[in-house]
């Protein structure tokens, strides 16, 4: 991956995805669920961007809106040169082979009435005019790539285990030789011992085929393992976007800090010593987000400005983007304090 040119394959600018709420007798448009509210990032070719956050923060919606599985409300999504958000239906169809998705639930994302061969060759059916034999040959090739025995080619999804089903989902995503794949919680439904198998497969495929991933997950330790850069989302917005090694060593945004401190490390000694940051309360509703910073209702270090002004995502250290008033000009003293505190925090 080192020889990959450092150009972004994917650029997302100010992506918004609002779902309208209709209510009352006349089903009037009374509000919006702002599932994604102004998200920007880019992903370098051949790299993995981790997108983490808790359920309802909008991370899956980002992935779906990027591939136009939803019609984005606003923003640009440039994938390999084209703005996917505004492509005409015909141009979008031609673009589909470049960008694919692996879904969370392999049980629900595979048609139970189709065999493995039918599932994996369906994209070929749609986008190529190959003969039956050519398609079958490609299916076999894909089965080899994802580690499925060729004998299983005529089996149905229910005859496979969870891990194998996820391999089928991956084979289907690979069928048209995409350059960019959105992996939406691909291991969340799998047992621990099976997760590692699928993650290693995704890594091998990335290396071999030069794939670019958006890896959406709530599993912070797995994201650390997989991603070069990580975006932490909270209530429809990015709180922090940092290189993985920096984020895990020293999170800057208070939410990123709390999220990392909540992860349970399989080490009793560490667990006994560690000071967790326990956040109070629940995530506010995205239909009615707080006026200022989205995190101000739970932030342990909230200031007055946080309740009135939404912080922008700004570069506060080389390569590190944070949306927090602690780090902007007005709160610059706060920033240096925070750094100090974090560095002490590291040693705990």
């Amino acid at each position, binding site marked *: 991956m080192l020889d990959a040119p450092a150009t972004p394959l994917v650029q997302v600018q100010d992506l918004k995805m609002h779902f309208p709420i209709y209510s009352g007798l006349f089903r009037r448009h009374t509000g919006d669920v702002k599932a994604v509210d102004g998200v920007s990032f880019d992903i370098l070719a051949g790299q993995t961007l981790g997108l983490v956050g808790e359920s309802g923060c909008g991370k899956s919606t980002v992935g779906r809106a990027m591939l136009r599985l939803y019609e984005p409300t606003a923003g640009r999504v440039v994938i390999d040169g084209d703005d996917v958000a505004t492509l005409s239906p015909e141009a979008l169809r031609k673009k589909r082979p470049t960008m694919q998705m692996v879904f969370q639930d392999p049980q629900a994302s595979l048609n139970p009435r189709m065999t493995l061969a039918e599932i994996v060759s369906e994209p070929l059916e749609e986008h190529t005019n190959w003969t039956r034999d050519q398609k079958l040959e490609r299916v076999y090739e894909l089965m080899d790539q994802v580690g499925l025995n060729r004998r299983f080619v005529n089996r149905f999804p229910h005859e496979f285990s969870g891990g194998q089903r996820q391999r089928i989902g991956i084979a289907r995503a690979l069928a048209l030789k995409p350059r960019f794949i959105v992996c939406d919680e691909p291991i969340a439904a799998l047992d621990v011992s099976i997760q590692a198998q699928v993650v290693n497969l995704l890594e091998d495929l990335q290396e071999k085929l030069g794939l670019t991933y958006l890896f959406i997950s709530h599993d912070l330790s797995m994201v650390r*393992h997989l991603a070069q850069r990580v975006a932490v989302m909270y209530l429809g917005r990015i709180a922090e976007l940092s290189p993985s090694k920096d984020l*895990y060593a020293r999170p800057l945004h208070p939410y990123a800090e709390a999220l990392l401190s909540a992860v349970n490390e399989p080490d*009793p000694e560490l667990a006994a010593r560690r000071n967790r940051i326990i956040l109070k309360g629940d995530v506010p509703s995205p239909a009615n987000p707080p006026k200022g910073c989205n995190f101000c209702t739970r932030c342990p270090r909230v200031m007055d400005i946080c309740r009135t002004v939404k912080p922008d995502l700004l570069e506060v250290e080389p390569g590190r983007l944070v949306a927090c008033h602690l780090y902007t000009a007005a709160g610059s003293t706060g920033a240096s304090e925070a750094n100090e505190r974090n560095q002490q925090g590291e040693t705990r």
Partner: protein
Amino acid sequence: MAEPAATVLDVRDLKTVFRTRGGEVHAVNDVSFHLKRGELLGVVGESGSGKSVTMMSLLRLLPSPPADIRGGKVLLDGRDLLAMSDDELRSVRGAKVGFVFQDPMTSLNPVFTLGDQIMEPLIKHMRLSRSQAQARAIELLELVGIPGAAQRLHQYPHQFSGGMRQRVMIAIALACDPDVLIADEPTTALDVTIQAQILELVKELRRKLGMAIIWITHDLGVIAGIADRVMVMYGGQVVEHAPVRELFANPQHPYTRALLQTIPRITGPRTTRLKVIEGQPPILTGPLTACPFRARCEHRFDTCDAVNPPRRAIDGAPIGLGHDVACHWVAPARQEAAHA
């Protein structure tokens, strides 16, 4: 807890079989463990390892048929739950033993208010009047950290978030001051920050109320933070048991070792390649006549195919009190090999 704690729950050779059209599935195979007052026992295993079925069997919560408890004893304060009449058992469920189920979304009845659901065990088991039960319900909701408890009592489950519902489930399980609380993956469906809240809550409640807890999970990280002792299950049996620090510092069973190595960490050096346990968990048709882990084990040898290994102590303590493991490779073969 200064005095030596008494054993509240003693499970011996529990055996549960499901009769299905495809034959018998041996889900729980001679599982034994005990629990002392104020202690937290962690039960780890992946789906199908028998951990939930074991706990459901204790209170005979499984529908029969297809479930059939073939043998064993479940002694709660010396009385065998498996030998009790249904009426007697009903006085134990919810009163002496509380149960928190995995999914807070489906375990609450959507058409009753929370108040009704928390008060139900209080009225049935504790014979409290409605107003007494209501006062106690408010107390319980406050105990589990739900603000505005008095108003919340009149609300329905859909008005609560996942974390809040799990707190309510814990409140219901705690309602009658049970001696034993069984929590079946209580935080699995929750986000990490909410999970951290619940784990803190459980630690605090344990300090305050001193109850014994069985905590079922597949997350070794959670176990490391809260358990006193850990029992690792695989193929419907206990494959390793040890005090928590000993287990993480000195894991013996190849499954436990591999499991600990498959999880990436958020501290320390970044893993370059995840260790993989190849293969799939076993299908438990028929009684176990060989080690259930053998097909995935890197240390497999002849004996593993011939004999299902019994639990053997590796520190000289009686089984279930210290560190024991069910593996031919570990004990005593490896010790002998080491000496040879």
